[in-house]
């Protein structure tokens, strides 16, 4: 006869505000099998937990139901508590009175009644709980970092310095990411490449880091501690061992008219190219789509001039499979393009540029060598207008969220411009200035007070070209919306930060969830900001949400710490929520009839065939057998099984049946 204890939590007013917890505890006492039921202000607090522990000893409880928040929140907390009291942790279940009841319903009897129901359901489940032992699985102490921007580099370095192997995969020909494109960085105005390049080199040289540039994740299988990743190394058409990076080929390539991605289309490159001078690795790559040889079968000039004969036109993509124990996602972001703005000319005006393009115009390594020249005619812009919130906080044509970094980089852009052209005029159209961060607001004030940047509070309605100038139509909402029209030589749109292309597909490969804008979703908005809801996969940087460099680096180190923590053990325990095939004494052996429908249904190839042999070695029966290491506990096999021979621990037919019977 089971002896169940029910513990109802008020969660302060969070539950008790709409649910009468006293009543819930009361009604639980009436449920057969319940020998103890109390309510308390904060069950998850120490006194709350000891309340449970003492009750277990005192009342010799065989099962515990904690009626509190979501099991996704505190199940581990309470199962540990129960274990400390000597009860098997899997004999503890939670009834979700907060997220699924008190927070979503109005105060009233119906709500309290529902809460009582939820408790009853769980009591019935606990009655059918079985004591389970966690499963131990080995950990492969090698991490996979996807994305070679500052986030990926930082995470890789921290993991590597913790003494673990790291594979850093970057899809473009060089690591460095967006940060390598920036001119200076806020709020200190130190040169981006000066602080980034050493890290890039360190990452490349680190004995624990293997660098795969121009490569992408093809496929991922397995689970925490035991992932199997397949990486596609795209053909550079080059033997990297022979190439010395002399760059002769890039200078000789006859095809010079290709838009240079690194310079955001403000300069051109050849078909064989190194993305930028400080690239790591400093080895060229042939852009097959634009290479004359690949298109026409003629040319091969680069091959002729290469002193070491490193060019390999026949090179093919290579698939590498790796065993890794943890993964850090650091695939970054993209900026909305200027052609997304009808009222700003659908991108047809050359002198309407986005923030990243302005970075290149301001950068010493950029197409203008840092001199202020506008794209259309190279004229030095006397008047520059910066438009914040371009596409951000725009539910009708852009994205509804705030892109977070624009306020700061717009102030920086205006400053950089004023520092280069003291007599020039800089205007910033803004809605709000969001400069919360160490020395951030001071930085914005400096732009306004010292560099005399004119901030105008209002959105820009239209931009059009007239007599070689851009007419910017805005309004000053601090003057009751008085219309403001500015003739500008250059307009910089602080366009919205968006999820990197292909984020959705990648998330689906990895089975991590993502938000409606395809940013990867953290496991908990506050308490698990670097975890995903897939164990062993962590997040760093702007692939999760718009982030600036300091935040990105901090989060990357956070993710690295999580990985190091995971790797600090040789094996890890997994929830024993796995399928099992029932076994019975001879001659029945099992209900399993060996149809192996389960095998075809299992997404993890976790179901094996087991032969039952007679003494003479002849096979009597062939039964299904679950490999607990591979099984992830989805239960698809259970639902497919005709004879109910296979069941899943923690969500057994018996348990769910019991839950339904209490409805």
């Amino acid at each position: 006869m089971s002896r169940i204890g029910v513990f109802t939590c008020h969660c302060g007013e969070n539950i008790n505000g709409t649910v009468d917890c006293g009543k819930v505890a009361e009604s639980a006492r009436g449920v057969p099998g319940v020998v103890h039921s109390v309510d308390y202000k904060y069950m998850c607090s120490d006194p709350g937990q000891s309340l449970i522990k003492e009750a277990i000893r005192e009342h010799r409880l065989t099962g515990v139901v904690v009626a509190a928040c979501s099991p996704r929140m505190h199940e581990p907390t309470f199962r540990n508590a129960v274990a400390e009291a000597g009860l098997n942790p899997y004999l503890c279940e939670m009834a979700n009175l907060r997220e699924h009841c008190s927070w979503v319903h109005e105060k009233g009897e119906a709500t309290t009644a529902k809460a009582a129901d939820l408790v009853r359901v769980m009591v019935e489940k606990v009655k059918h709980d079985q004591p389970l032992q966690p499963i131990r699985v080995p950990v492969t102490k090698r991490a996979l970092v996807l994305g070679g921007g500052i986030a990926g580099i930082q995470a890789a370095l921290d993991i590597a310095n913790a003494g673990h192997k790291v594979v850093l995969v970057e899809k473009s020909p060089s690591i460095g990411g967006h940060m390598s494109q920036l001119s200076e960085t806020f709020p200190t105005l130190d040169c981006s490449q000066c602080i980034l390049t050493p890290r890039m080199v360190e990452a490349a040289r680190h004995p624990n880091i293997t660098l795969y540039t121009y490569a992408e994740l093809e496929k991922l299988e397995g689970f925490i501690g035991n992932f199997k990743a397949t990486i596609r190394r795209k053909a550079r058409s080059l033997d990297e061992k022979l190439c010395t990076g002399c760059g002769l080929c890039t200078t000789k390539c006859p095809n010079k008219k290709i838009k240079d991605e690194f310079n955001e289309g403000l300069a051109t490159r050849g078909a064989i190219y190194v993305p930028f001078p400080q690239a790591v690795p400093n080895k060229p790559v042939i852009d097959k789509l634009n290479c004359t040889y690949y298109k026409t079968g003629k040319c091969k000039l680069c091959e002729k001039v290469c002193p070491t004969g490193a060019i390999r036109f026949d090179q093919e993509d290579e698939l590498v499979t790796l065993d890794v124990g943890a993964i850090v996602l650091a695939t970054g972001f993209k900026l909305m393009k200027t052609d997304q703005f009808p009222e700003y000319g659908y991108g047809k005006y050359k002198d309407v540029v986005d923030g990243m393009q302005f970075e290149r115009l301001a950068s010493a390594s950029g197409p203008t060598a840092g001199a202020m020249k506008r794209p259309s005619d190279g004229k030095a812009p006397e008047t520059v207008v910066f438009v914040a919130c371009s596409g951000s906080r725009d539910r009708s044509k852009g994205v509804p969220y705030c892109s977070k970094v624009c306020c700061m980089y717009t102030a920086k852009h205006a400053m950089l411009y004023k520092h280069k052209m003291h007599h020039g005029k800089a205007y910033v159209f803004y809605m709000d200035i969001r400069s919360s961060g160490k020395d951030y607001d001071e930085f914005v004030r400096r732009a306004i007070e010292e560099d005399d940047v004119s901030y105008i509070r209002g959105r820009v309605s239209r931009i059009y070209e007239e007599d070689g100038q851009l007419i910017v139509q805005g309004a000053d909402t601090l003057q009751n919306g008085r219309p403001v029209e500015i003739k500008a030589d250059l307009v910089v749109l602080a366009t919205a930060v968006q999820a990197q292309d292909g984020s959705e597909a990648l998330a689906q490969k990895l089975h991590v969830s993502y938000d409606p804008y395809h940013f990867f979703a953290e496991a908990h908005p506050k308490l698990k900001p670097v975890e995903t809801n897939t164990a062993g996969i962590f997040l760093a940087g702007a692939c999760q949400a718009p982030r600036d460099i300091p935040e990105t680096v901090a989060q990357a180190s956070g993710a690295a710490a999580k990985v190091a923590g995971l790797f600090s053990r040789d094996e890890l325990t997994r929830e024993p929520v796995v399928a099992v095939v029932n076994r019975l004494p001879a001659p029945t052996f099992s209900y399993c009839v060996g149809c192996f429908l389960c095998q075809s249904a299992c997404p993890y190839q976790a179901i094996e065939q087991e032969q039952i042999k007679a003494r003479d070695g002849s096979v009597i029966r062939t039964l299904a057998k679950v490999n607990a290491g591979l099984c992830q506990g989805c239960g698809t096999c259970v639902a497919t099984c005709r004879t109910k021979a296979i069941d899943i621990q923690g969500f057994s037919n018996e348990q769910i049946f019991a839950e339904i019977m209490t409805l």
Partner: protein
Amino acid sequence: MTGSPHPSAPSETLKAKVEQATGVKLNHCYQCGKCTAGCPVAQDMDLTSCQILRLVQFGDPAWDRQALQSEGIWLCLACETCSTRCPQEVAVPKVMDFLRAEAVRRDLAHPRSRDILAFHRAFMDSVRATGRLYEIGLVADYKVRSRHFLKDVMLAPRMLVRGKLPLLPHLIKGRDAMKRIFQRTLGVKP
């Protein structure tokens, strides 16, 4: 402006009425001023579109009155530039339409709205009577209502010789039906 707003009961505020009648969510407006920035007549308005929205957002009767008394609401041409570019999908012209009607109902319409109103009423009277617009009738009627007798006197003859002003109205058959339509919507007299 009056001092701090003194909201009246939510249900009967102008805000509530606007939202109920137009389906526009006034709280969506975050005062970015983009509507005014693109408005072709903003410079002629005593209160600009974003100011008017601001006033009505609060539910303060005194501020509501300011909005209703403004000339701005009468200058809106419903060119839809604002609503097309509004980042928050606020249909400003719909709000303006409602505020004009409400201003007339509460007898708060701005003095200079007289002519504009006179024109629209003359226009609709003509339609009520014949089913279609009878331009000469409209012009004549408008002149009587607005007392701008001499305005545009040179235009009419030039239009006549170009056959742009038919001297007789087109009468449609369903005139009675039209009258009833006006009754059911505008009430007896617009």
